[in-house]
């Protein structure tokens, strides 16, 4: 016990009283640990961060009718099976043929919040429609009809009933809040709320489909789809193009980060080994002296290993703090959102740092035991 105390006293003295020398060694260990813990943080955070990025590319799951009709209530029930925190948006759509100035146009009823979330790449000149009496017009429609934001538009619907004599046109008036540009077929439609759609056409809970944007990996997504499909009210399918490319990009990115981590680890080892070699070289005399006063090879190894590992411990602690700061900076600057702190990473970094310092100190320390006390003590 007393021996252990002296041992600790010695290696602490070596680190603290030889500060200027040790600071270089500590720095190399700490930088290695910083980059290591930073990269591992990023490695584990990439799926989450990238998931959020990918959600900009639109829906990755579609609900359609599994039987004759798809009801809004069924869509909501099915969507409830997906955890809220992963649900970026749900946009049900109902399409009907209507007429504007006697020309047929397709009208889409949807939830503007859901549509905004599932189709973040849609660009609206003006504002989104938000409630009753407001409408958003696709760019193609706006061009053919020369419609501008702020215009009042009359929309006509002719109910299709068996009793054609009773047919009277339904008419609603809408203010155009914005012109929609997507580069796709959406520019051919006009958009209103589901309630307005029901009022204009006929009261119905029916929707044609629902688009969902879910922040989850490919496997989880197909899990959700299976669960929903098992319930039989709704048919859920994945937008394969999106989910597959997400998975590919993620795998590649993680592989890249892993590769960089391994390279950094190797560089750290070389750096620490070089430092330890220098430490041993400049302390040949001390090693000779220790041997002369009775130190065995094993105690020399133990002392230098102790110093190395203590260095690893300090470096690891400094590194895991700086590593988090580093990863946080990367996260904020690259992904625009902050990092989740993983407490487990602290002990892992510290242990890895101790192990790396220990392993890379092995060779130089081995050479320390070969010092011949007689030669070293002979004189300058």
């Amino acid at each position, binding site marked *: 016990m*007393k*021996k252990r*105390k*002296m*041992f600790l*006293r*010695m290696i602490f*003295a*070596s680190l603290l*009283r*030889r500060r200027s020398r040790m600071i270089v060694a500590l720095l190399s260990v700490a930088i290695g640990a910083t980059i290591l813990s930073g990269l591992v943080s990023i490695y584990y955070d990439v799926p989450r961060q990238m998931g959020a990025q990918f959600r900009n590319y639109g829906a990755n799951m579609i609900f359609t009718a599994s039987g004759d009709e798809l009801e809004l209530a069924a869509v909501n029930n099915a969507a409830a099976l997906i955890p809220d925190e992963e649900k970026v948006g749900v946009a049900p759509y109902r399409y009907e043929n209507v007429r504007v100035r006697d020309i047929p146009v397709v009208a889409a009823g949807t939830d503007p919040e859901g549509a905004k979330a599932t189709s973040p790449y849609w660009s609206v000149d003006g504002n989104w429609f938000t409630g009753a009496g407001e409408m958003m017009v696709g760019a193609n429609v706006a061009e053919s009809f020369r419609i501008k934001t702020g215009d009042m538009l009359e929309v006509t619907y002719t109910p299709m009933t068996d009793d054609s004599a009773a047919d009277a046109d339904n008419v609603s008036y809408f203010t155009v809040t914005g012109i929609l540009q997507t580069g796709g077929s959406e520019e051919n439609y006009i958009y209103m709320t589901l309630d307005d759609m029901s009022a204009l056409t006929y009261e119905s809970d029916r929707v044609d489909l629902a688009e969902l944007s879910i922040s989850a990996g490919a496997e989880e997504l197909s899990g959700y789809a299976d669960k929903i499909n098992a319930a039989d009210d709704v048919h859920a399918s994945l937008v394969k193009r999106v989910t597959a490319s997400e998975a590919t990009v993620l795998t590649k990115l993680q592989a890249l980060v892993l590769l960089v981590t391994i390279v950094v680890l190797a560089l750290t080892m070389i750096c620490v080994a070089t430092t330890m070699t220098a430490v041993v070289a400049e302390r040949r*005399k*001390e090693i000779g*002296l*220790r*041997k*002369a*006063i*009775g*130190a*065995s*090879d094993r*105690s020399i190894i133990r002392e230098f290993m102790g110093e190395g590992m203590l260095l690893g411990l300090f470096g690891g602690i400094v590194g895991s703090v700086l590593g988090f700061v580093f990863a946080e900076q990367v996260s904020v600057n690259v992904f625009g959102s902050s990092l989740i702190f993983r407490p487990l990473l602290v002990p892992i970094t510290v242990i890895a740092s101790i192990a790396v310092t220990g392993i890379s100190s092995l060779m130089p320390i081995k050479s320390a035991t070969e010092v*011949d*006390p*007689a030669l070293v*003590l*002979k*004189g*300058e």
Partner: protein
Amino acid sequence: MSLLELKNVYKIYGDLHALDDVSLKVEKGEWVSIMGPSGSGKSTMMNIIGCMDKPSKGEVLLDGVDISKESKKNLTTIRRDKIGLIFQQFHLVNYLTALENVMLAQYYHSMPDEKEALEALERVGLADRAKHLPSQLSGGEQQRVCVARALINYPEIILADEPTGNLDEANEEIVVDLFHKLHTEGTTLIVVTHDPEVAEVAQRTLVLRSGKLSKEVVNENFTGKIHFDS
């Protein structure tokens, strides 16, 4: 049986005979000086007696054990248990305090004991310097720390290679007085020196020349006190 006996010891480097057929005996409790010109093999002999080197030929019996046949590992153990070393350049671990340097010898020998180490420093008159680093001590003080370290484990023999080589007369006297104290307590001392005044203090002086023992002078009126001519 003598404490130390060298029988026809050679140390040969290439065609250089650093030690050339040296035989000698040192009895327990004796104080012996070794003199000789530079390069005559004094340090070579001390390294062999101190278990830091092995002879090319011959036997070295320390306490009845032939150390010329022992493994490096055993030599370390023997050195630790039986020998106290003092060098010309006061070799101390520069980041350990005087006290810690003394405790280091205890640490490798058995158990560090701060109180005992402090007593050893007291014996060399450095109790008040215990917490100083070597760089904060004068040369004489550093050498006294080395003496304290050499005597801390009660070695059978203290080997000192030019212990006063870098000291002024005042410190020389302090160190020689310490040797005298150790001698009266029964410690065997072998002291290499260039300085006739230091050599004369011992009971016996051996002179080496080109690796051979060339002369032996017995000090008839031994007092153990240094006597300066000037």
